[in-house]
């Protein structure tokens, strides 16, 4: 099981801020989790956003960062604070 969080525009478009996903054999990186969601089709294809950012266990990371069962993963648009 992993937890996936969404923020801002993604949260609105996906109409959810949190998913619990069963762990899939073969998942190695956040990119695999993203691909798994995108293949669900609309509206999940919004995650194809080339500006997509992500975090693993509340640390910003890249899509090729390793993921493990039990992780909390977050996908979000480019940040715009400040």
């Amino acid at each position: 099981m992993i937890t996936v969080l969404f923020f801002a525009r993604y949260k609105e478009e996906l109409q959810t801020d949190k998913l619990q996903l069963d762990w899939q054999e073969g998942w190695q990186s956040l990119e695999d989790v993203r691909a798994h969601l995108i293949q669900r089709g609309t509206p999940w294809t919004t995650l194809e956003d080339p500006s997509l950012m992500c975090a693993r266990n509340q640390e910003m990371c890249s899509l090729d960062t390793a993921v493990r069962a039990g992780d909390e993963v977050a996908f979000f648009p480019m940040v715009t604070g400040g």
Partner: protein
Amino acid sequence: MITVQVQEAPFDPGQLTNSVHAGNQAIGAVVCFTGYVRDFNLQHSVQGLFLEHFPGMTEKSLERIAEEASQRWPLLAVHILHRVGQLEPGEPIVFVAAASAHREEAFNACAFIMDYLKTRAPFWKKEQTSTGSRWVEGRPSDQQAAARWADDAESS
């Protein structure tokens, strides 16, 4: 020495500015940045701004940015405060202060913290305009501003 705050409540930039020195007579230079909500942005008249964030990660990312600044420059104080939730035009939204013995370090650290905050801290702005609400898009110029510090990493 490092203070990080994320809050819905308004804050007073002047009060924070004065609190940075706090009687530490080794401090020669305090550089403060205050960001305010503008009433106009990219051809839109802005009536309000909603700040979403990632509770928990937000504080951690700001602390990490402050620590990285402290490793790069000999700082005597760092203060970061960012508001979240609903804001009106004219309100202060973010405050960053860096204190050091000399001005160059304080200027660099304050600019560095803002550049990193803009690209690495999980905040998202949604503007309320006369034609509805829209998420503010990330600016490539902010990415470029943050990237210049990577080139400086060795020489700083």
